């Protein structure tokens, strides 16, 4: 036991001195990722919010041909900006500027007066998501205006306007802010799990490929310590780094997301210390499995560089279930809680939404993750007994 502790201390001391790996482990991952994701979420909220409620600026060519329509639109927070343009120029204008452009053709007034469909052209670049929302709103508003005219025409002819509404369809949107935010939240739990694993990467690789490459493995194997204990000490050091990074990441997320409209994303309004601690505890059982998996993979490689490549690929494995979960819209089930990393994803989501999972689910998640960890740790320990380790 003492030797495990001694190896652990030495590994941590070395890691703390290696500025570059420390920078990646404790700064890039835990602080940059949350800042980045926070920014993305913030932009997404602002964008969608602006399109559905905020004022819209509508450029209009030949505004003089449809004064009443534009008055109507102005009542619904549409800012009309008249420009002088023919059709060709209107198209060019849309390509250059953001936002939709309404072109009123010459025959608009006469056709409207004659009771015939009056043409309008709405130019917009719908590849821009914010423009999409605006176009939808404008279409609805113009449709509303047209409906009013239609009703007036019927009334003028002595007909009941309801004749035009044979069916009354009421679409009822059952989506909650929670379900709409599923993808965004998935990104968040992905970031937490990924940065956590990343932080153990350096030590895990160093345990085998690194020691071998710099020629310190052979001397290390000549000390009177059980070889398993050397690996356990190193993996424990990797676990410590992963834990520190996990705490930092979650704390950084808590701080970042506090400044963003959390309720809009369907997260429990309070991403406070309690939720943060819950996330850390939920992810904790995955740490040994991650450290041992990376150590195992690194041991089969011939050099540090090769190890980095392969372990980098292996880091994607725990993130696969998260991708499936968001594509298939998986919901927590007892069987799924037995999938490491996916179960951590469910735990994080439920905590953020403020909808606690059954405690049995959490026990399954922790139990399976720890059991997998134990198996992998044992295998990694055995590995150090193999001669081929020397390369």
């Amino acid at each position: 036991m003492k030797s495990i502790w001694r190896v652990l201390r030495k590994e941590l001391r070395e890691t703390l001195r290696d500025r570059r790996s420390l920078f990646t482990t404790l700064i890039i991952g835990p602080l940059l990722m949350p800042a980045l994701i926070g920014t993305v979420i913030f932009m997404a909220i602002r964008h969608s919010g602006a399109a559905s409620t905020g004022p819209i600026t509508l450029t209009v060519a030949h505004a003089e041909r449809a004064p009443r329509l534009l008055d109507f639109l102005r009542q619904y927070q549409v800012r009309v900006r008249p420009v002088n343009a023919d059709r060709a120029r209107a198209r060019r204008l849309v390509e250059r500027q953001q936002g939709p452009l309404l072109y009123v053709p010459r025959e608009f007034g006469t056709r409207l007066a004659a009771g015939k469909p009056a043409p309008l052209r709405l130019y917009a670049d719908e590849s821009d998501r914010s423009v999409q929302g605006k176009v939808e709103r404008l279409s609805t508003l113009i449709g509303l205006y047209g409906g009013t005219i239609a009703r007036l025409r019927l009334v003028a002819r002595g007909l009941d306007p309801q004749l035009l509404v044979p069916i009354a369809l009421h679409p009822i949107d059952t989506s909650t802010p929670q379900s709409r935010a599923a993808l965004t939240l998935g990104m968040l739990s992905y970031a937490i799990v990924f940065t956590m694993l990343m932080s153990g990467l350096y030590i895990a690789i160093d345990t085998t490929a690194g020691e071998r490459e710099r020629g310190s493995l052979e001397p290390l194997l000549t000390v009177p310590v059980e070889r398993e204990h050397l690996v356990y000490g190193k993996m424990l050091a990797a676990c410590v780094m992963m834990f520190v990074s996990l705490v930092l990441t979650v704390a950084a997320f808590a701080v970042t997301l506090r400044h963003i409209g959390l309720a809009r994303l369907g997260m429990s309004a309070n991403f406070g210390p309690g939720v943060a601690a819950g996330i850390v505890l939920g992810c904790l059982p995955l740490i040994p499995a991650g450290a041992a998996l990376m150590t195992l993979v690194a041991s089969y490689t011939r050099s540090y560089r090769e190890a980095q490549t392969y372990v980098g690929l292996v880091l994607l494995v725990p993130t696969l279930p998260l991708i499936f979960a968001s594509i298939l819209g998986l919901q927590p089930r007892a069987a799924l809680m037995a999938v490491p990393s996916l179960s951590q994803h469910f735990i994080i989501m439920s905590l953020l939404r403020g909808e606690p999972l059954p405690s049995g689910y959490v026990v399954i998640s922790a139990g399976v993750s720890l059991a997998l960890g134990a198996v992998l740790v044992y295998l990694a320990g055995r590995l150090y007994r193999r001669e081929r380790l020397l390369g």
Partner: protein
Amino acid sequence: MIEARALIKRFGTLTAVDGVSLRAADGCVTGLLGPNGAGKSTTLRILYTVLTPDGGEAWIDGASVLAQPLEARRRMGVLPHGAGVYPNLTARENIEYFGALHGLPRTARRARAAELIARLEMEPFADRPAKGFSQGERVKTALARALVHQPRNVLLDEPTNGLDVMAVRTLRRLLGELRDEGHCILFSSHVMQEVAALCDDVIVIAGGRVVVQAGPDELKARAGTASLEEAFVRLIDPDGAGGGP
């Protein structure tokens, strides 16, 4: 004392060590001499428990390297080929870390590291990170690390590789001192002068087999030459197929 009996080690179809038996006595510097690829390193690696032999047995002060590897390791200090040290630790920390792994209490390993640093003239770089060490500084660090637990037996694999004249002299002096203190020293080399300058006993290995084990003078006498180099060449290549004067 280091003893080996009929060691065999195969890598695939290649038999690197083919029935090596040897004996290195206490108070004696024993040289393992042979051309490249003769099986010197493999023999040493079996002795310091990193490789498991396919046949045969070896003992370090009576502790079997197969049955009691931890006991055997406790009784020897090893300077493997290459001598890798931890780049982010200082020389002193590298030495103390191995002291800790050998179970020395904190005060003991501090004192021992300081003693070795003085003895190997490492003061100028003892507290610098090993990252920028020269080959000589690295070997000295690795050597001090191997000696931190005051092992009775010392195994060195090509210790003078890449060292300058001054470093080689320090090493020779140290090995001489250790011998005089009664340690058993076994080192491998393919450099004749090295062996001639240091060894009380020479084991010549070629093609994975021991050709002869004898003192330098006896070696010369057996080969019927005045120079050790000539003796060596005749011993490993008795038909003279490799050419020569």
